[in-house]
């Protein structure tokens, strides 16, 4: 494997979930916001806590800490609002994090076949090897295109 294949310098945001740090590609990050009121309503998607309101937009809150660390976050310091491309649309999702976030540039090593689906790549920072997350593997994904079409396009009111 050549160095070009092995390393790819990218901007990433480091996030803290409990005792561990993870990274997300910086281009996926929309903003970092202070915790605000979480609105909850009846639904069956257990991974989603509720929604927050950001700039008039409804953003689902998805706590990925339990999947990644085995523990739910006991304190939420910020919401890292990330974007996900779903077909033609760009969805926002708010990830609760328990500490400061940091923007870094690092060389990424692509994930191998034996890595978990939630690992997009690896980076090394401050002597720590950190997983760069594949958000699509951590947040709920509609499995049934028909259901998504039915509910996903309510008539819009100007």
């Amino acid at each position, binding site marked *: 494997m050549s160095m070009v294949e092995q390393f790819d310098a990218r901007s990433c945001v480091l996030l803290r979930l409990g005792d561990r740090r993870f990274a997300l590609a910086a281009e996926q990050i929309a903003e970092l916001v202070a915790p605000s009121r979480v609105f909850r309503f009846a639904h069956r998607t257990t991974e989603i806590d509720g929604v927050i*309101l950001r700039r008039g937009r409804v953003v689902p809150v998805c706590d990925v800490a339990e999947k990644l660390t085995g523990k739910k976050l006991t304190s939420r310091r910020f919401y890292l609002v990330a974007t996900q491309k779903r077909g033609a649309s760009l969805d*926002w999702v708010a990830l609760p994090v328990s500490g400061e976030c940091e923007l870094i540039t690092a060389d990424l090593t692509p994930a191998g076949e034996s890595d978990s689906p939630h690992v997009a790549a690896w980076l090394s920072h401050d002597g720590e090897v950190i997983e760069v997350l594949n958000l699509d593997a951590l947040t709920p994904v509609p499995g049934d295109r028909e259901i998504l079409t039915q*509910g996903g396009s309510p008539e819009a009111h100007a």
Partner: protein
Amino acid sequence: MQFASTHKAPHARTEQIILFRCSTQVFAISSASVQEVRSVDSLAGSPMEIDEPTLPKVRHMFRRGEQNLYVVNGAVHFGLRPSPASLILLLRRSRTALLIDGIEKMTTMTRLQALPAAFCHEERVWYRGLTVLDQNVIPAVSPEGFLTADELFLLDALVSRMVVTETAAANGIGLGL
């Protein structure tokens, strides 16, 4: 010669909605989808009891014209803690009557946002979308989302069997005595 533009900013489209409560939660429904609001007491005596273990949200049915109308308990439908219901919303162009705790108010919504795609289970059928009212996020229910075609088929079949059994019992036949 050019005429002065007569273009005016379009009026925001609005929709009249009813905010209703099931258990501890508030939902919105388009008032155009509601044909009638009745007190639970006003239906006492006439409904037929239904006991279909796979559909615990439907416990009663009543006839209106040629149709069977099925009463869906809103709290059970949304997986909320059951609470004493006081009102029934008869839905327009539907065979569903919705049992609710109460009506909060009638109001107007100007914007309905799509349910974020991260919500990927039954809620996609339950809701038309989400609306923001007084800094609160309220799900707007889809009137068609309370009973699927399969559920209606199952209920119709159950009611037909019940009617046949009752008729046979009333006529004293089919008991093999």
